[in-house]
């Protein structure tokens, strides 16, 4: 048994909290059995091996002495993986930095801050490593099964990449903190995390093109003599991670050693003052606003809409989440555009992407406005009928959606008014559908729990996504003049009907109000 306040003791405490946090996330705060969540996870993990087989099985027979092009391609994959993990790690570090949690307790305890925050940085790296293992497992499993045990080295590289990502995330976030100050860092770090994460998705797109090749594709570019001539030789340290993945044990030892050294350096450099930064972040001097034009109220509904818009605009987590949502949809759009040759086909893809984004974004905004109402008693005791409150909130969501997607729709309209009309109608229907799902499944929650909104109802989450995709397909097919649009629309309506029958409340009512 470890001594109290020792490094091992602190690490056990951190990991226990992380485990309980994860368990709570998986079981929706113990409302569902853990065994069921584990079964679903296992099913998903096994299912992922099929696409993984299709993607990587053919590379399993690459020998222990790969050429430069192969090393370059695999290095790109490692880099993309690093960007994904870095995004997650930055998000995690920012969240830790800006939440008070047990900060007062630990900072007032006799434990040296350097020791405590070293443990926290290390614990975060362990969690990132577990995530990295889970994400890479289907691909590495396939390579091991097809190509032999030498591919097991891939797991070592996955862990090393996660450790480096955790260390770089701490360094980057603290660097931003010093450069921009606590107030700006929160938003900038969140946005940066979203952009870095999207870089991974965009990168996957490039890899997909590389894998499938084709005239003018990136495969041809990567294999071109011009590029190969500028790449370092196969023995360069630059290719260490790639060589490690291919099963070079010496390279693997070097990669893991570099990763651990990076983490140790970051712990030594930043842990002693991380507590002070965190205190500075949570004790921010409140933002001041100019007092002007606040009492321009015209009706209670107007007041409600204005309040919702103010809160949406001032939500840093929402800004980054929205940006992530938009950025993650760019690669699929690019991929689809790449596969469509005609201009009309491209516009159909644009219609589909816009409708999908519209539906998903409306769902997120509706959760904030409807379930994330921080003063439900105030709204419920105000002299408004419930339907008026709901209508005002829906109007606020649709208005915010119009601000985000309106400019894109205008651009589409300039190119093709015909397709813009389908996109606008599709966005409106998809948005109203996901808002309706939020109304059926609403559950009072703190606005700050936005990141965990999916845990309150998996059915609502899936229904939102499937409805958006179905309406996107319907709008795209309709724009392409296909009669199959009707079938897709029927599917969307069936999903809505299913969501309604599974929802805890099937009728519209005001949030919290009873009369």
């Amino acid at each position, binding site marked *: 048994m470890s001594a109290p306040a020792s490094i091992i003791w602190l690490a056990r405490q951190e990991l226990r909290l992380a485990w309980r946090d994860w368990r709570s996330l998986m079981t929706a705060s113990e409302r569902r059995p853990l065994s069921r969540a584990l079964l679903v996870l296992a099913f998903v993990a096994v299912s992922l091996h099929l696409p993984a087989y299709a993607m990587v099985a053919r590379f399993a027979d690459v020998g222990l002495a790969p050429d430069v092009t192969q090393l370059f391609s695999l290095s790109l994959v490692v880099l993309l993986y690093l960007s994904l993990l870095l995004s997650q790690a930055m998000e995690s570090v920012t969240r830790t930095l800006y939440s008070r949690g047990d900060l007062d307790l630990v900072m007032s305890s006799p434990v040296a801050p350097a020791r405590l925050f070293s443990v926290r940085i290390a614990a975060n790296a362990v969690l990132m490593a577990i995530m990295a293992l889970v994400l890479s497992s289907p691909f590495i499993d396939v390579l091991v099964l097809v190509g032999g045990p030498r591919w097991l080295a891939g797991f070592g590289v996955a862990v090393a990449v996660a450790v480096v990502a955790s260390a770089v995330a701490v360094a980057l976030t603290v660097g931003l903190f010093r450069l921009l100050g606590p107030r700006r860092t929160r938003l900038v770090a969140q946005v940066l995390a979203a952009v870095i994460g999207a870089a991974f998705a965009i990168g996957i797109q490039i890899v997909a093109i590389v894998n499938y090749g084709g005239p003018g594709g990136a495969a041809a570019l990567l294999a071109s003599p011009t590029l190969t001539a500028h790449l370092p030789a196969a023995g360069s340290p630059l290719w260490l991670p790639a060589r490690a993945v291919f099963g070079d044990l010496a390279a693997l030892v070097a990669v893991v050693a570099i990763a651990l050294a990076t983490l140790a350096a970051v712990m030594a450099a930043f842990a002693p003052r991380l507590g002070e930064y965190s205190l500075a972040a949570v*004790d*921010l*001097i*409140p*933002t*001041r*606003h*100019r*007092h002007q034009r*606040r*009492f*321009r*109220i015209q*009706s*209670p509904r*107007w*007041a*409600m809409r*204005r*309040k919702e818009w*103010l*809160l949406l605009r*001032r*939500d840093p987590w929402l800004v980054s989440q929205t940006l992530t949502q938009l950025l993650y949809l760019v690669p699929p759009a690019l991929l689809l555009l790449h596969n469509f040759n005609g201009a009309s086909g491209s516009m159909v893809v644009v219609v589909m992407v816009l409708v999908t984004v519209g539906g998903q974004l409306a769902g997120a905004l509706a959760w904030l406005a409807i379930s994330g109402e*921080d*003063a*439900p*008693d*105030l*709204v*419920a*005791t*105000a*002299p*408004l*009928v419930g339907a008026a409150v709901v209508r005002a909130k829906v109007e606020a969501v649709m208005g915010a959606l119009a601000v985000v997607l309106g400019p894109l729709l205008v651009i589409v309209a300039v190119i093709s008014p015909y397709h813009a009309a389908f996109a606008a109608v599709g966005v409106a229907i998809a948005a109203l559908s996901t808002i309706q799902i939020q109304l059926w499944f609403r559950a009072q929650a703190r*606005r*700050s729990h936005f990141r965990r909104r999916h845990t309150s109802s998996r059915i609502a989450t899936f229904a939102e996504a499937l409805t958006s995709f179905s309406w996107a397909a319907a709008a795209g097919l309709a724009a392409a003049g296909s009669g199959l649009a009707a079938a897709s629309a029927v599917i969307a309506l069936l999903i809505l009907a299913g969501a309604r029958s599974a929802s805890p409340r099937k009728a519209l009512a005001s949030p*919290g*109000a*009873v*009369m």
Partner: protein
Amino acid sequence: MASPGTEHRLDMDRAGDLPALRLRGLTKSFDRPAVDALDLTVRAGEFYALLGPNGAGKTTTLRMVVGLLRPDAGAIEVLGVDALAEPVAAKRLMAWVSDEPMIYEKLTPLEYLAFVAGLWGIEPAAGERAALELIDWLGLAAHANERCEGFSRGMRQKVALAGALVHDPRLIILDEPLTGLDAGTARQVKDVLQARVAAGGTVIMTTHILEVAERMAERIGVLSRGRLIAEGTLAELSLRAGRGGSLEDVFLTLVADGAAA
């Protein structure tokens, strides 16, 4: 001293002898009866304290009055308005302050008050004037344009109270409004409430701080197991309990008698 925003006061209610609140047979059950056929009348222009042990049904009663819970049976009348038949009209006359101040972290106090004034349909100029007066009166002027996210509990409670007053309600209902407040802030809140009553408003408040009820309330109601077991001035309650002393002594005797009955 008159509190801000009390231009159109309620002397007419006093003159007309219209009760601020009348409950008849109010009933609500969850797993067991929480409020049991409760009859209660609060006169307009009085400070009424509702006392009772934990689980007596105080909060449930008040939440039904302000429209946050639907009663299983009974009638609620607010200044002559049937609150179950005309909820919007009744809500227009009332304000609710809960023990946990619910405000928006990302709004400033002035923005919050503008929102509340808007919900109650207050004319903008009057709303802004009342808001500024309340902000000043509650000592929030230095923070009027700061977001509420960094505010202490006391400051949040002041903002919530200002929100309850900005639309000049004729009936203010407060559930444990002094919980967790420091002495200075509690004093300010008490001053605000007494000023409202002095100006003709009606205040109904639950509290576990019996000295506050003893000192501020004109009449006190004691709830136990969802029923009103005693009501009156402190002197009347003392007589009923058959003992003198502090309200604490009287309260404990009444509750013990009520439990034994």
